[in-house]
């Protein structure tokens, strides 16, 4: 089989290093015996497919090829095709999607495909699986890799026949000459591997109508394993002689161990060692380990028991005065003061003062934890100055370079194997847990797996930022909006990496400075905020709080104007147009994409809004206690509108008779999977909106596990969830994150429609299980 398995001399990896999957579920019978592999996977000796490589021609140095075909595709003499997936699989079915893009252009039978997971290596180009980028940023490159390889194979056949390539066609792994003679891809793969990779402008991509796999639902590559308990996640990795570690980390950021008594811990059966962790350096945590004390044991449970028995006195560190309650009040006070202008159109101050009606509202959203179902876990094994790592990481190259830097070895000494991820949501793009494993394995002199318990995950995360926002709006006598002011204050993600006392332009562009409203006087301002815990990105990032505020406020303005919220939203978005935010003084990053390819198009925004409203039968009579809410937003280049029907009973219990979502993500590679991501993204947003709150006392996070960090469960899930994908030939947009932003405001708007209560602070339920019905009717 691919990758180094039991038959190799290398350390036997029982699970993590198996081929992630095998599409047809056929084994590689006889693999390694006489395979003539032509095109190999490039020079990554740590992870090369041993059995194939043994039979292979010398490995070409492909490092100058940016996601060229040679690093992504190899074809054996018998036609089996291996695709190397460079992206991290965390539930978005990226393995399947990448295979769809490459195999379509390569034109091979789906059942001939085998997938190998790439290690972290620059030669694969960008591997950071974050920002909903796997399709939107790599659609052309993955297709180009498949098409280039197809052209090389066809050229090799033409050479063998001594004919011109124009006389040859290829389909499903077979090359045919106009005379009728044929060769398979396998027949010519060795010769093809010796050809130069063709220049991109000589390669023709398929037309849409020729697509075989793109835009079709292909079965998930991982499903067959995961429903049998077979997939290998980071926490499942096992290496012979491995020890298990859990770590007691300082309660507050940059806290230190003042004194340690490990006598009782060492007496716990199974505990072999107690190790003081290297402390993080500098003032910004970055991706460093957090320090603390590790307990090493012969199984995870013994390590957990050993940690319980540690007696540690902590030096609380520089953030010991952080109390999230006081901090929230400070944020709110800042939001009520003028901040630095980041978007300026017309004269908001003047327009507000001359408005017929002026309303204002304060919004708050608490810190959140990503809490992927699989907590962070990583395994490391050193051989001399080289370390091999297996981890559920969203960003293997960052893991590689951070480990190299902190351990003081060159990048090439660090091999990061990417396992399946039991969810990521942004948490696993920060490789602090990988660094911990590497440090401990070196210290202990044996392979070590670090497992984060749920308490560790919730207490020591990279938290989604807390925020306070203040909005003001002016209406004229006909209920038209004349002015909108949006002030936002939140500690920035940048604070994790260096000095920062204010939200960044990038974060502001997520839901604040990208406001598409056609209002003559508008301003966005940002205020100062320092951070005291690690801030990190979480699914859809700053869109969560910004869109909660301004899509709630749109409904509040509609209410003040006495208009239907959906019709009102259509109105303030205004006429069909392409928006240029630079006119309002905004340098708009557009999620890293070009505005020519991905313009901000109000026509598409209104189309999804209309569609979601139609799906929800907007305007219908709903039973007493029910309410419909709606919100729309463009994020990660995709347009999503969501309508939510809530039912609130007399006791304040909330349920969801239905949720309807319309998404325009441009060209969609994998339709049902896109729907699945919109469902998941929406419910993730609702779960956080209803219950999500991380608080801190004296710098330490108060919550610890699912009892006090509450997430949505089956009984709270909607009974109907319909997603509509808009037909589009626009370039692909993201789908993993865009479902989340409209969820919270659509929910708050629905609760208002049902009860007359306008909830402006997330979590919407506060510390309660249900809505406080004494406040019904209080706008």
């Amino acid at each position, binding site marked *: 089989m691919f990758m180094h398995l039991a038959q190799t001399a290398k350390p036997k990896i029982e699970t993590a290093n198996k081929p992630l999957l095998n599409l047809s579920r056929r084994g590689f019978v006889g693999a390694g015996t006489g395979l003539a592999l032509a095109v190999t996977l490039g020079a990554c000796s740590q992870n090369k497919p041993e059995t194939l490589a043994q039979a292979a021609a010398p490995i070409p140095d492909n490092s100058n090829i940016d996601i060229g075909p040679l690093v992504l595709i190899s074809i054996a003499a018998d036609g089996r095709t291996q695709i190397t997936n460079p992206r991290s699989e965390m539930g978005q079915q990226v393995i399947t999607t990448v295979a769809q893009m490459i195999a379509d252009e390569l034109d091979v039978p789906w059942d001939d495909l085998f997938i190998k997971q790439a290690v972290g290596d620059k030669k694969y180009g960008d591997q950071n699986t974050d920002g909903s980028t796997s399709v939107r940023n790599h659609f052309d490159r993955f297709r180009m890799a498949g098409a280039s390889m197809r052209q090389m194979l066809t050229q090799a056949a033409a050479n063998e026949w001594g004919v011109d390539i124009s006389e040859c066609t290829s389909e499903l792994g077979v090359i045919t000459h106009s005379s009728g003679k044929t060769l398979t891809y396998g027949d010519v793969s060795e010769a093809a591997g010796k050809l130069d990779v063709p220049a991109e402008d000589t390669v023709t991509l398929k037309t849409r109508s020729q697509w075989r796999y793109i835009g079709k639902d292909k079965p998930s590559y991982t499903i067959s394993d995961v429903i049998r308990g077979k997939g290998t996640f980071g926490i499942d990795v096992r290496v012979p002689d491995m020890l298990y570690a859990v770590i007691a980390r300082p309660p507050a950021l940059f806290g230190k161990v003042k004194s340690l008594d490990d006598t009782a811990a060492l007496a716990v059966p199974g505990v072999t060692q107690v190790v003081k962790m290297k402390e993080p350096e500098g003032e910004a945590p970055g991706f460093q380990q957090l320090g603390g004390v590790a307990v090493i044991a012969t199984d995870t449970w013994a390590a957990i028991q050993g940690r319980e028995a540690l007696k540690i006195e902590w030096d609380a560190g520089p953030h010991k005065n952080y109390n999230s309650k006081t901090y929230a009040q400070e944020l709110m006070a800042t939001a009520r003061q003028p901040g630095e202008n980041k978007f300026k159109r017309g004269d908001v101050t003047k327009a507000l003062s001359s408005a017929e009606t002026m309303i204002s509202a304060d919004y708050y959203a608490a810190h959140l934890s990503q809490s992927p179902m699989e907590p962070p876990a990583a395994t490391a094994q050193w051989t001399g100055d080289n370390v091999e790592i297996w981890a559920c990481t969203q960003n293997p190259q960052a893991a590689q370079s951070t480990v190299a830097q902190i351990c003081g070895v060159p990048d090439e000494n660090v091999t990061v194997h990417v396992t399946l991820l039991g969810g990521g949501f942004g948490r696993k793009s920060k490789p602090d847990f990988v660094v911990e494993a590497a440090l401990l394995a070196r210290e202990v002199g044996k392979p070590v797996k670090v497992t984060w318990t749920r308490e560790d995950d919730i207490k020591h995360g990279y938290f989604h930022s807390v925020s306070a926002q203040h909005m003001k709006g002016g209406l004229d006598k006909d209920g038209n909006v004349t002015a909108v002011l949006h002030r936002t204050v939140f500690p920035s993600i940048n604070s994790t990496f260096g000095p920062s006392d204010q939200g960044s332009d990038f974060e502001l562009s997520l839901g604040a400075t990208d406001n598409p409203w056609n209002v003559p006087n508008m301003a966005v301002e940002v205020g100062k905020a320092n951070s005291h815990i690690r801030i990190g990105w979480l699914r859809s990032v700053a869109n969560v709080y910004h869109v909660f505020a301004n899509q709630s406020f749109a409904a509040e303005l509609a209410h003040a104007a006495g208009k239907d919220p959906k019709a009102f939203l259509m109105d303030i978005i205004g006429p069909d147009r392409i928006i240029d935010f630079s006119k309002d003084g905004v340098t708009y990053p557009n999620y890293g994409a070009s505005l020519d390819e991905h313009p901000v198009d109000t026509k598409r925004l209104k189309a999804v809004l209309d569609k979601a409203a139609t799906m929800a039968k907007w305007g219908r009579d709903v039973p007493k206690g029910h309410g419909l809410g709606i919100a729309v937003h463009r994020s990660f280049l995709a347009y999503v509108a969501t309508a939510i029907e809530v039912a609130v009973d007399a006791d304040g219990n909330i349920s969801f008779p239905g949720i309807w979502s319309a998404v325009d993500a441009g060209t969609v590679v994998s339709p049902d999977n896109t729907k699945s991501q919109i469902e998941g993204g929406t419910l993730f947003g609702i779960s956080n909106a209803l219950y999500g709150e991380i608080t801190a006392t004296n710098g330490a996070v108060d919550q610890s*596990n699912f009892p006090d960090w509450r997430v949505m469960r089956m009984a709270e899930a*909607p009974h109907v969830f319909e997603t509509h994908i808009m037909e589009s030939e626009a370039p692909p947009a993201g789908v993993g994150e865009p479902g989340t932003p409209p969820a919270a405001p659509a929910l708050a708007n629905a609760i208002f429609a049902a009860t007359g209560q306008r909830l402006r602070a997330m979590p919407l339920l506060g510390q309660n299980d249900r809505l406080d019905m004494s406040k019904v009717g209080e706008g």
Partner: protein
Amino acid sequence: MAITLKINGKNENVTAAEGTPLLWVLRDHLGMTGTKFGCGVAQCGACTVHVDGTPIRSCITAHEDVEDSDIVTIEGASGKVADAIRGAWEELAVPQCGYCQAGQIMSATALLVTNKSPSDDDIDAAMSGNICRCATYVRIRKAIKEAAKAVY
């Protein structure tokens, strides 16, 4: 403490400290990593296995307490109900990351063995101990109903 556990019809000799939860015996001692760790405090259901046919949370079950029982894990779940559940899970593409799904399948299988046609309320009651952070709940609910139809 050396004891013998009967797991998926096979006797397994285990030496683990007294009180070690079945979850860690399965995962760390026996290498059966299909059963997952999600919380350790019986709150998420990722660690669900069957003990004498009943779904339990293996993270809070001391392994010595199930010495004389029939233990079935995701790796060994079989029979017409488990097959129907898996079939429906594939048909409706239920899993996203898949991490919670072993637990979901063990809970759903136990439900369908005793309840031929579960209502939404029955599903809520049986499945609310299983968290899915990817929030595949809508598909799980549908798949349980599909599986019920397929098997009965």
